[in-house]
């Protein structure tokens, strides 16, 4: 028997091409005679456009096209509202080019196509726009205050949505409270910032005729169908390819970005291929961002620290538009309870427009905020009751025998927030043991006596993953015995070319290295949604499993016939079907694929010969009624609801109260994403997520001044951590398989990023306990930590603790 493909720690099939510089990212696509585009972006956070004079730009030699809103006609309608919701009473989406008014710095005002990017940018500089600046609002609380400037004149009070939800009897819970605490918690704006920015290339071939678009997206199929509608083309004449994607993190799940419409439109208009590649400044001002919430939370606990009820009211920063509806704050509300029993829960959020680029999901998607709030509440209870934070968690965990556990709220996909499986108490103990918590407090005391400030922080989360609607797959065995798998979603570094191959190989009893996976190409697979919400492996993985199992069944059926054996006596391993106990009675998958093709003679000589010796003379048609040619099948998987992964992160930090510097001495991750397909890939996903979590806690922050000017527009200002800031991450795995899908898997893509702010807040607060510092905001830079120490009422005890 072959060793199992699923669960194996194997190196990635896709790596050699990336390592040799032979990958194909969007900007590597250069159709012959391609033209290059550049965008004119608003320098104002809010202004009326009085006039645009593009005549000088049009006169530049080498300029082919200068487009403003008036040139686009009906195409310049507001983009689609991707996820409507009844509580989103005032949705607003962006037009490809600003019409009469700009609402954030970076909004596209004009689009230039020229011989090269240099000329296009020269021409952009020559477009004269007369702006009338309008009042600006950037702060979410100010946006909802009476008399605030309006981001959209027809949205009263800048309020896009208000959504109250209730579970159980929160008022009753508060009446029974032995302890009652309130906190105001803030998490500021950040962004995904993949190292490959966005990019679009389009060409229209009037002879085929096909509009072909390469775009750095996480969802090529919805883009294909949307472009077909916008341009009045049949869907089969539009092809969208997300080739190699240099990181997405949610930023690239937004559709449509203006350039995704403008580039294909220009290619159709000019009859020549057109390319636009985002530069970093454009990314940091005009690609969607996230985080950005202010919470007012109130908790009722009994005398032992058990939570009786929780009320949370929060304001969510939408930026200037709501293309993704209110999915991010819905996730925050639904996932805030985390691994804890919260029988009585009252949560209400308001969504405020501000003069900043729009918010749509970024890795974690509302969860880091919710987890930060819940874990700060746990920390507060521990602090006030004089308990270990770990103990408060133990007293509030949902127990392993209580699954499925219904949180009582509707999840982002419209399904229930119903936890399928998990073991949260065990997870916490695993993390504590690995971090040697038993020895920590003594070490902390000893360090304090030497003037060193160590802190221990914990962050637990539950993450809904693997949501619908569905994905599909096409699995085919070729006469060579090699396997081809196509699925509709994309790959932006998750290792799908390997993990998906492992799933197919497991069903087909072959080597994962013999399986080639294609993703993100609408020419190869036409059904599905995209890669987001930690759903790729669960949805496409189970679809591939379904399709590959059909192929396996067909292979066994054909083999049984040829080998004159019962299918029950056959085994499939090492890419060969064997009759158990009869040496030499066997056929390879390639041979079976050859036989499955009614035109058998022309391919794979050896396979043909081996198989055809066994083929009997034909009776009737080559294909029986309902029979299909080839050793191939399609399969689909639509989950009934989300699978809920979970984890517990622990950090030990040292804070220097003089400089405000935070050093992470240890970072331990316990995580549970159900059955593991490739632990190496999973660990990689977690490492990267943790780095983003740490970045979001200590370094990265999108900053605007009071006029709405973004101040973090370079990598010198938006500080993504380097190898010097990210510590060694220690991982302990726990596997509680999901009962919801055949593979027992849950998603893992976002997990690592979720508890970072929560765990570091608890660790820093613990380290600075002698100063009485409370952490109620994220991110924290050294300067802010020093301020918090100075502002603390207990500063006079400075370090004596």
């Amino acid at each position: 028997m072959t060793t199992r493909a699923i669960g194996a720690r194997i190196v990635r099939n896709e790596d050699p091409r990336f390592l040799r510089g032979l990958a194909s990212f969007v900007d590597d696509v250069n159709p012959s005679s391609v033209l290059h585009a550049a965008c004119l972006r608003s320098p104002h956070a809010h202004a009326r456009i009085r006039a645009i004079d593009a005549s000088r730009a049009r006169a530049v030699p080498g300029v082919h096209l200068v487009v403003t809103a008036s040139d686009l006609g009906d195409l310049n309608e507001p983009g689609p509202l991707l996820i409507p919701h009844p509580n989103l009473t005032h949705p607003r989406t962006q037009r490809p080019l600003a019409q009469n008014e700009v609402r954030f710095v970076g909004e596209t005002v004009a689009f230039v196509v020229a011989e090269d990017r240099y000329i296009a940018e020269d021409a952009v500089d020559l477009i004269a726009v007369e702006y009338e600046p309008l009042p600006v609002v950037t702060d979410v609380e100010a946006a909802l205050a009476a008399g605030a400037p309006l981001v959209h004149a027809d949205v009263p009070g800048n309020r896009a949505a208000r959504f109250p939800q209730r579970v159980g009897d929160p008022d009753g819970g508060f009446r029974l409270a032995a302890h009652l605490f309130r906190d105001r918690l803030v998490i500021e704006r950040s962004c995904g910032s993949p190292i490959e920015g966005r990019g679009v290339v389009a060409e229209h071939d009037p002879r085929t005729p096909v509009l072909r678009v390469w775009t750095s997206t996480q969802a090529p199929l919805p883009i294909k169908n949307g472009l077909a509608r916008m341009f009045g083309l049949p869907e089969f004449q539009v092809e969208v390819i997300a080739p190699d994607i240099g990181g997405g993190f949610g930023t690239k799940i937004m559709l449509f970005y203006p350039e995704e419409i403008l580039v294909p439109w220009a290619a159709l208009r000019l009859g020549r291929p057109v390319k636009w590649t985002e530069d970093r400044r454009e990314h940091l001002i005009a690609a969607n961002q996230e985080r950005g919430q202010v919470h007012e939370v109130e908790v009722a606990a009994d005398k032992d620290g058990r939570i009786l009820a929780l009320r949370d009211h929060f304001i969510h920063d939408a930026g200037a538009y709501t293309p993704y509806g209110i999915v991010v704050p819905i996730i925050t509300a639904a996932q805030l309870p985390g691994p804890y029993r919260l029988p009585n829960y009252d949560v209400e959020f308001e969504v405020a427009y501000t003069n900043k680029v729009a918010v749509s999901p970024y890795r974690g998607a509302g969860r880091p905020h919710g987890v930060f709030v819940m874990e700060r509440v746990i920390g507060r209870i521990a602090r006030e009751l004089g308990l270990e934070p770990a103990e408060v968690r133990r007293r509030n965990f949902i127990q392993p025998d209580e699954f499925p556990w219904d949180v009582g709220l509707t999840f982002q996909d419209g399904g229930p927030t119903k936890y399928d499986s998990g073991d949260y108490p065990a997870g916490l103990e695993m993390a504590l043991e690995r971090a040697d918590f038993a020895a920590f407090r003594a070490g902390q005391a000893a360090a304090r006596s030497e003037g060193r400030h160590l802190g221990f922080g914990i962050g637990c989360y539950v993450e809904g993953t693997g949501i619908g609607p569905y994905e599909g797959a096409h699995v085919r065995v070729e006469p060579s015995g090699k396997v081809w798998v196509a699925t509709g979603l994309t790959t932006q570094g998750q290792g799908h070319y390997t993990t998906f191959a492992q799933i197919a190989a497991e069903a087909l009893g072959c080597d994962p290295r013999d399986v080639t996976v294609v993703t993100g190409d609408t020419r190869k697979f036409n059904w599905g949604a995209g890669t987001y919400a930690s759903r790729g492996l669960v949805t496409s993985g189970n679809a591939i499993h379904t399709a590959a199992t059909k192929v396996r069944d067909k292979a066994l059926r054909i083999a049984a016939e040829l080998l004159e054996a019962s299918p029950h006596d056959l085994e499939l391993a090492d890419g060969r079907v064997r009759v158990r106990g009869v040496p030499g009675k066997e056929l390879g998958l390639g041979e079976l694929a050859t036989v499955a093709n009614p035109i058998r003679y022309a391919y794979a000589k050896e396979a043909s010969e081996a198989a055809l010796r066994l083929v009997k003379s034909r009776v009737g048609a080559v294909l029986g009624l309902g029979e299909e040619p080839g050793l191939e099948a399609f399969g689909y998987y639509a989950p009934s609801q989300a699978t809920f992964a979970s984890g517990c992160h622990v950090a030990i930090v040292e804070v220097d109260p003089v400089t405000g510097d935070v050093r992470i001495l240890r970072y331990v991750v316990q995580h549970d994403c159900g059955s593991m397909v490739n632990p190496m890939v999973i660990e990689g996903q977690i490492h990267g997520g943790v780095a983003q979590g740490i970045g979001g806690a200590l370094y990265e922050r999108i900053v605007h001044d009071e006029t709405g000017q973004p101040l973090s527009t370079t990598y010198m200002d938006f500080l993504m951590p380097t190898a010097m800031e990210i510590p060694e991450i220690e991982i302990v795995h726990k596997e509680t398989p999901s009962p919801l899908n055949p593979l027992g898997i849950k998603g893992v893509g976002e997990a690592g990023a979720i508890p970072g702010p929560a765990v570091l807040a608890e660790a820093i607060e613990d380290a600075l306990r002698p100063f009485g510092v409370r952490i109620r905001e994220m991110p924290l830079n050294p300067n802010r930590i020093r301020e918090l120490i100075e502002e603390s009422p207990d500063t006079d005890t400075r370090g004596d603790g």
Partner: protein
Amino acid sequence: MSPAAPALVAVRLRVNGRERVESVPPRLLLSDFLRYRLGLTGTHVGCEHGVCGACTVQLDGVPVRSCLMLAVQTDGAELTTVEGLAPGPDRLHPVQEAFRQEHGLQCGFCTPGFLMTVTAFLRDHPIPSDQEIRRELAGHLCRCTGYQNIVRAVRRASVLLATEKARERAGTP
């Protein structure tokens, strides 16, 4: 300023061992020259302001940011890009092999820049400490890996290179 077409400048250089003679506009970035003129799209551009390091190539053996240089500055130089690392189509360079073994890449976009820095670094520091490795890598941004497996890859590459060197000395292939 009217952008009149500037006069072209001739450059002659060697790229991955091959002689190249091209006429380029003076303002053409080295990164754009490599990617669009020479078709060497393995060199990636992540920030165009010299921070992320994705565009790193070796100029006369020294890692440089190709987004911060002009093509005309490379006249007479010897350039190596990621496409020039592997000894052949069937074999990876030990540093490339180590990145694969240690899962030191995910989306792969920043990877060529890391490879160009790491190959030069290990040439000059064959047995680096973890701290030295991390300090060297700090000139590059990776958004996927959290760096941990890149650090491991550099460690492993150091061993692979030492083994290769020992084999060469022993005269065995």
